[in-house]
């Protein structure tokens, strides 16, 4: 009997024993194409350079508490990230994962306003159908009803505006641009409703991942969001935990939207699965406000800035930049997407194929014309996950796409090193899974 507390007690998962490029291999020798359980393994499972960097760091220094020391890899990784970060981003706060990054972002936003002399700013606005993590603060910011439901009494108060979800929410006669402005307007309306000087931050994913299935905003949406934030002194927090670090073809996903946030969260691809690491990056203005005030961000975990984790992150980011992988993501993303369109573009139950780079979502519908979702009691996403896995594909199907209850999608986030020849390793299991489930 296992003593591991698993994700799900009813599942009896195989034991993963090794990784080879884009593939995971279980104890029976079965191979699975890893198309992004959670958009982590961007370099595949056997990157020699990253593992050597980790081993070298371990041989040198495993751990030194950041209350006393900084470390070489943390300094170098921060330099490299800032050198490539959106304009204005000047500091990096290393954590161990995405939830920790968004949690830290919420606290930093609050402390910034307090130190700036605006302690009345306490409201956070986020979006429905977004996911920002599973700890209490992060879960509060997230707008996915299913994830929030039973913990609702414990959550902090956060406003949720509509996502920018063109496939479902754009009016038939509405242009993409007009829709983007209408969607962004909800932010201003909510700021005004709460009281403009009481709002501390707005948090959003540039490309919504787990809960919407790779949905980028329409052009102009985030530019308008940035304007509204600036107008009311509200900080813009972008959560790039899933979509950042090259996943969309840009090291930082917001580059595609032409905006710079005040606070930016990354994780997943930063460690590429070789180490658990995340980071919260912030503007010079925010850092200076704290530095010139108390000088102390009242936060911290034991493992922040962990030398081995940051050494892994450094090797990963260097690999992303040195190997031209962002360009590769764009090209391979187009190839994969066009293969998916030719395989499923006319499928009666695939309503939308969307995304950016190697971050692609397929929305499953009961009716393509009306875009009506399947009855949630059918559990389509869960069945898709199981069927695809049986066919040797690790992907991320999720239900509740529309409102936390209705709707299903499959999220694909394969390694950046995947080749054109491997496209069938994704398309064929999906095809078989779809025909089995529907």
């Amino acid at each position, binding site marked *: 009997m296992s003593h591991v507390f698993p994700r799900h007690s009813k599942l009896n998962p195989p034991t993963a024993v090794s990784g080879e490029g884009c593939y995971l291999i279980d104890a029976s020798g079965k191979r699975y194409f890893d198309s992004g359980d959670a958009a982590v393994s961007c370099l595949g499972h056997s990157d020699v350079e990253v593992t050597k960097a980790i081993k070298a760091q371990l041989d040198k220094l495993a751990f030194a508490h950041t209350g006393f020391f900084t470390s070489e890899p943390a300094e170098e990784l921060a330099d490299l990230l800032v050198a490539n970060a959106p304009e204005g981003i000047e500091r990096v706060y290393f954590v161990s994962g995405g939830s920790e990054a968004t949690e830290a972002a919420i606290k930093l936003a609050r402390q910034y306003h307090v130190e700036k002399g605006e302690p009345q700013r306490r409201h956070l606005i986020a979006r429905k159908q977004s996911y920002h993590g599973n700890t209490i603060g992060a879960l509060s910011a997230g707008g996915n009803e299913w994830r929030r439901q039973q913990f609702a009494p414990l959550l902090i108060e956060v406003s949720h505006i509509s996502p920018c979800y063109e496939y479902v929410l754009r009016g038939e006669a509405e242009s993409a641009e007009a829709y983007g402005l209408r969607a962004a307007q909800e932010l201003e309306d909510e700021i005004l409703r709460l009281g403009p000087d009481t709002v501390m931050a707005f948090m959003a994913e540039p490309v919504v991942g787990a809960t919407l299935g790779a949905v980028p905003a329409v052009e102009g949406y985030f530019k308008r969001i940035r304007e509204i934030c600036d107008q009311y002194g509200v900080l813009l927090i972008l959560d790039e935990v899933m979509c950042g670090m090259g996943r969309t073809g840009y090291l930082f996903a917001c580059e595609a939207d032409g905006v710079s946030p005040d606070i930016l969260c990354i994780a997943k691809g930063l460690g590429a699965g070789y180490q658990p690491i995340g980071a919260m990056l912030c503007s010079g203005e925010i850092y200076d406000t704290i530095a010139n005030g108390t000088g102390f961000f009242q936060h911290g975990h034991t493992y922040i800035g962990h030398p081995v984790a940051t050494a892994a992150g450094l090797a990963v980011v260097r690999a992303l930049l040195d190997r031209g992988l962002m360009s*590769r993501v764009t090209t391979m993303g187009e190839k994969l997407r066009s293969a998916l369109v030719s395989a499923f573009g006319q499928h009666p139950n695939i309503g939308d194929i969307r995304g950016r780079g190697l971050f692609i979502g397929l929305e499953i519908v009961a009716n393509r014309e009306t875009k009506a979702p399947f009855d949630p009691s059918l559990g389509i996403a869960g069945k898709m996950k199981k069927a695809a896995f049986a066919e040797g594909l690790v992907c991320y199907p999720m239900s509740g796409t529309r409102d936390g209850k209705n709707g299903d999608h499959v999220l694909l986030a394969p390694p950046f090193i995947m080749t054109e*020849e491997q496209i069938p390793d994704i398309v064929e299991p999906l095809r078989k899974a779809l025909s089995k489930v529907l």
Partner: protein
Amino acid sequence: MSDTSPFSLAGQDALITGSSSGLGFEVAQLFARSGARVFINGRSEDRVRGAVEKIASAGGIAFPLVFDVSDTRQMADAFERLKNVIGKLDILVNNVGMRDRRAFAEFDAESVRRLLDADLVAPFLLAQKVSELMIAHQTRGRIVNISSIAGLIAQSGDAAYTMAKSGLNGLTRALAAELGPKGINVNAVAPGFFKTDPNRDAVADPEVAAWLARRTSVGRWGEPHELAPAVLFLASPAASYISGQILAVDGGYLAHY
């Protein structure tokens, strides 16, 4: 190209020296298209980065390896980095070639040595390092030296280069003999007249074109993409029983009179 093609380099790792531009880049590009992971080498970080970017954006996998082949220290560091990046190597293409056209009487010792360092000592040392790695990993390795028709015939005003390329052909045969039993095939290609950047003045000259029309069997300049397939052939499983050969890729120049 499918994995079962005898010309596929799927799963293989290749280092091509001087591959940030020109014929070396053509080789790297074709290797990447044929499934190999390629190390792009050059002296300029920007040019190497640009070449890596081009290969990656075409769906290939490339790693930068900036070093000067004539600098033994840089070569050793780069080789350490190569081992850190992927740990093994299946193919080495010694492509860097320096040319110094002048009358025999005008050569000085230093410039002759500089040319020999780049064109002969560097391939020698690199082959030594690479073969050690190949033998350690029991790789069915391939070394392809980019020689020249100047290694087989000669013209006036090109003595140092001609000497170096003749030496490279000798090295090719010597290494084929010595490394063959260890599972490594060593061959060379000898390009003729190609439309490369260093040849741009001659390429622009209609008289040269007219002369090539008479002197080559195919009657024209070689296009830059016409060398790489020969290198691919020698590096691929298709050439498993070929070693110690100098394959002229010259439009028939050597065979024609």
